[in-house]
């Protein structure tokens, strides 16, 4: 073994002697003991590794992630409605699995769909985390605008009067789209918004879809294509547009 081969192997050697008992490193370590240059290189490498490890450990997850994980998973485990509405607010827009059949859930494993409606239904039926939380729709719109994402404008019917839960940006077929989540008496509705300029082939006409208990309705205006989905079912979704 020459020093270069030893360096190659010792790049995988962890600090504080964690791998000291692994025979894969023994020959390279012996060479580092005998060769001052290689020994110095190993010391420098370990110092570099220690600082990088310490630094990345300080990178903290967003607030609310832990609560979202716990709430989302418990819904899945118990198959009952989440019992703490306040925690649900923190874990906003976690999929309502109690209302979704196992068949739907398996279908949702593949998030990408052939259409924006399929994508929206798949995405909304699995756990996800919102980037901005507010009941105030104008605040959610401002956040989306500041992130160069499509904002909801001229929403029809009761949808325009609902309280918000939160919003986030997503990538669909490489283009930025928005998701705004609404609350209607404890039931969540998820509005996906895409720019027509990004998806010129999307039909702007009103279209209804259903998959199990999930329902979606899509429509368009001059600038945007919208897809509204909910586990409350197609009738409930449609009624929001009236």
């Amino acid at each position, binding site marked *: 073994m020459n020093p270069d081969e030893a360096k*190659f192997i010792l790049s995988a050697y962890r600090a504080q002697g964690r791998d000291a008992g692994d025979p894969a490193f023994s020959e390279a370590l012996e060479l580092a003991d005998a060769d001052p240059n290689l020994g110095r290189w190993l010391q420098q490498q370990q110092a570099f590794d220690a600082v990088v490890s310490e630094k990345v450990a300080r990178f903290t997850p967003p607030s609310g992630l832990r609560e979202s994980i716990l709430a989302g998973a418990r819904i899945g485990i118990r198959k009952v409605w989440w019992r703490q509405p306040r925690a649900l607010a923190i874990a906003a827009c976690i999929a309502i699995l109690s209302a979704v059949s196992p068949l739907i859930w398996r279908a949702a494993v593949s998030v990408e769909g052939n259409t924006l409606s399929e994508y929206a239904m798949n995405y909304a039926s699995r*756990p996800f985390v919102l980037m901005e939380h507010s009941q105030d729709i104008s605040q959610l719109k401002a956040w989306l605008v500041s992130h160069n994402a499509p904002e909801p404008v001229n929403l029809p019917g009761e949808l325009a009067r609902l309280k918000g839960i939160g919003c986030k940006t997503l990538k669909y077929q490489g283009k930025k789209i928005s998701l705004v989540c609404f609350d209607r008496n404890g039931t969540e509705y998820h509005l996906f918004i895409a720019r027509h300029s990004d998806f010129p082939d999307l039909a702007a006409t009103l279209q209804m879809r259903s998959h199990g208990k999930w329902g979606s309705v899509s429509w368009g205006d001059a600038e945007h294509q919208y897809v509204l989905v909910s586990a409350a079912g197609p009738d409930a979704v449609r009624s929001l547009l009236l």
Partner: protein
Amino acid sequence: MAVAKDAFTGLVDAYYASLYRFAYSLSRSETDAGDLTQQTFYIWATKGHTLHDVAKAKSWLFTTLHREFLRTRRRDQRWTFIEDLPVAQTEIPAEEIDQLRQLDGAAVMSALASVDEIFRAPLTLFYLENFSYLEIAETLGIPPGTVMSRLSRGKTQLRNLLAVAEAKPNIVPFDASHTRRKQQP
């Protein structure tokens, strides 16, 4: 009233931060990292009971997150293979390590997330969780020798990226207009 932690909560508390960092380094997006982390724990909640050896939960979680990332990432993203990148053979001056200590965690994480994808996953597991090369091989499903190669080459790339990050704070914009005003009588 205090509520006793269940096993699942304990598992989340133990690993969600590390899994999020791993997810962030893979996806380079806070949103996707949050979703991936949550999805991983959801899969555990629904399928984890099939894992008979609970001691392997950590490895299972990281493997599952990595698989979820590979499955959900866009099809038009491609692996980057840079086989001619040199292995980590050059010495690291003490000044370089001192400069590295001045960087904050977000800057180092950003540099790590900028490493080519093929090297990023093994490097992140090495630095985040102190995974051994054998654990990395098992988690990512690649041969141990390949892990060594990717760690060595990935460290070279990370050093280069960190050097750029270290240089940035020293670049102070030159305000020419302010100087001209001061020169006027």
